[in-house]
């Protein structure tokens, strides 16, 4: 399996969508493929709303700092908010005691592995969160290239312990960034993730929706539009 193919082994990218897309079915719907992404509990809303830092249910404060640092390189904060501002670490913490309970070991071992890698590559640095952003990216680059063959079961089970830690972390980071902020899962705090991708916060819209349907005269029979 080539390097490129390895990269596409994530269950959430094209390859998985593809094998299913021929069903004439939508990409959006295809998460139904992925049974491990079951529900996170719905009692996180208070934590999101609270100005106080929420208590972690799974992570130690040290682990939380490491995960937050990693998530912050996957979706960095720059002129716009990133994983940190969206509270992704709180989403993941809740996920690990709810829908992603099977991934607890992956995180525990994954964090330790990352720290070993940091110490090996950058002697003197012991924690991912203590490394410079450049060093952090070097580590994530190495992790994201880890070779694992795609199997049918793994393709169907993102976030499970049969896929590389990086893929689990990546998916959880994205989910924590872009989940419906009204869903009480502790992610997408204040809707910042939706703001970044340009999704308006509402759940009710009126046309025109975008640039092209503004002032559009509507469907005309063929020939009618020729003056």
């Amino acid at each position, binding site marked *: 399996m080539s390097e490129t193919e390895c990269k596409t082994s994530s269950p959430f*990218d094209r390859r998985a969508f593809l094998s299913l897309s021929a*069903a*004439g079915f939508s990409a959006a719907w295809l998460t139904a493929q992925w049974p491990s992404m079951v529900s996170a509990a719905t009692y996180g809303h208070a934590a999101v709303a609270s100005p106080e830092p929420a208590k972690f249910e799974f992570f130690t404060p040290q682990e939380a700092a490491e995960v937050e640092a990693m998530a912050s390189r996957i979706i960095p904060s720059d002129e716009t908010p990133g994983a940190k501002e969206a509270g992704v670490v709180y989403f993941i913490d809740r996920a690990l005691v709810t829908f992603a309970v099977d991934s607890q070991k992956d995180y525990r071992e994954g964090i330790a592995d990352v720290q070993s890698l940091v110490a090996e590559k950058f002697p003197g640095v012991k924690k991912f969160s203590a490394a410079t952003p450049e060093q952090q990216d070097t580590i994530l680059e190495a992790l994201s290239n880890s070779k694992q063959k795609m199997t049918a079961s793994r393709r169907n089970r993102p976030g499970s312990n049969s896929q590389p830690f990086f893929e689990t972390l990546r998916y959880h980071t994205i989910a924590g960034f872009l989940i419906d902020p009204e869903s009480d899962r502790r992610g997408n705090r204040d809707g910042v993730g939706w703001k970044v991708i340009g999704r308006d916060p509402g759940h009710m819209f009126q046309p025109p929706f975008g640039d*092209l349907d503004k002032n559009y005269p509507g469907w005309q029979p063929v020939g009618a539009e020729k003056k």
Partner: protein
Amino acid sequence: MTPRVQYQTSDEVDFVIIGSGAAGGILARELSTNGFRVVVLEQGPYLREKDFSHDELKILAEDFLTNHPKLQPNTFRKTPDEKAKQQRAVVYGRAVGGTSNHFTANFWRFHEIDFIERGKVGPVPGSTLVDWPITYADLEPYYTKVEWEVGVSGLAGASPFDPPRSKPYPMPPLPVKSNGVLFEKAARKLGLNPFPAPMAILSQPRAGRSACMNCGFCLGFGCEVGAKSSSLASMIPIAEKTGRCEIRPNSYVHKIELDSRGRAVGAVYFDEKKNVHLQKAKAVIVSANGAETPRLLLLSASKQFPNGLANSSGLVGKNLMLNSGGISLGVFDEQLNDYKGFAVSRILHDFYELDPQKVGFYGGGGLDARFDMTPINFAAGGGLAPDAPRWGKKFKDTIAHNFTRTVEIFSHGTSLPKEDNSFSIDPDVKDAWGLPALRLTYKDHPDDIKLAKWLNEYGLQILDAAGAKQKWTYPIEEQQFAVHLLGTCRMGSDPKTSVINADHRTHDVKNLFLCDGSSFVTSGRGQPTMTIEALAFRAADRITDLAKRGEISA
């Protein structure tokens, strides 16, 4: 308001209907309105509009509305000589309303050709393609009934390829989206005939239901305002209002009970606590979908019917068709915001009927422009090009730019029936009730793959003509995941080559009827629900006639 009726399992009702989806909901409404006493057994829960939400993880990933792979595992193999491996192989709605709760709502009528294609093109090697025992003209009044009574928005006469119709649509089309505008302009540039998509979503308030609020969480989600014309929103409330129809959720039917004469006496099911009951009825109608209907017949094997109930033809579960198709994507400079609203506003049918002599394969299909990805799915991979960055600042910049500027062109097409393509019961894997799991066996006919590639090329041409700044496509591969579940108890006149007759009555059991995607003889062009519903309205008429003439229970 009429109080809701509740029957005892020992009450011999007129009909027990298994499944409350696109077909079951209509049959329940029609038969109860016609004066019959009806019990609908639905394996899933009775969810209401207030239970629906926009939580992607809950609705899509947790299978809140759909069959759950942990409770009901599936297996898959490509051909009958392989041993099937456990993997998720089918998705369908598992709640009152069935798959109609979460469908995209593309409501294309079949065209005349879909019923008579075998006669026209001749035999297709490697396929069991045959013609329907009914024609488009037989079904036309019922298509109209679906449009008016279930609720379809559209513009009659807009497509030069449309089959004849007796009435216009009851509502104007939904508003055009930006992807619809660019699709329409580009397709016209190519000399094609795009037109407003017929959609089973209300463009205007109707029958006490709201018009579409354009929330954008449509495909895969239940509608909180009842604008999507699901059976739950449109048919079931009317059935219940008759005072003669009981919808009984959490009732998982696993056997059709027979008497010594080989007549159905009712349906055996697990309730929520896994207690077993027999609901007695004068006749049984199975509308459990194209996967679960054949499975139920196979699970109902007995000494009288050792190969499965109503299976003297040996065709129960076979001739499965999933519809072929493909997806190409493009990114534009303009802010399209197609995440707002329903999925599809423009389609085209120029390729509905391709000439096999010219293109070198059998088939046909249609194209639509849409954006149906929710934010997480989009960013996690579904919406990104193969070479897009997967993390870091470039990844963030990509999703920030592309989410509001991406268009999908979907192609939808025929599947040729093959006897080897089937749903059957797995010899080893069991579900959470100890019943044999559904096993999918499927390998696309080579012509289906050729068609999908051919249509997808057109999708890319449309993106080019529309001025996409970047475009790519998902490769067309053999399918191993079933969404459209068609043909597995096909309709026909000859009991040796079909499972049900044109009245939806099984050839083998006089008071057993089947009506859903399993009844299909051909696959149509990729949007089957409209035809499932038209068949259900027609079946209700046929069954009512038979019952009134005393030809069911006699």
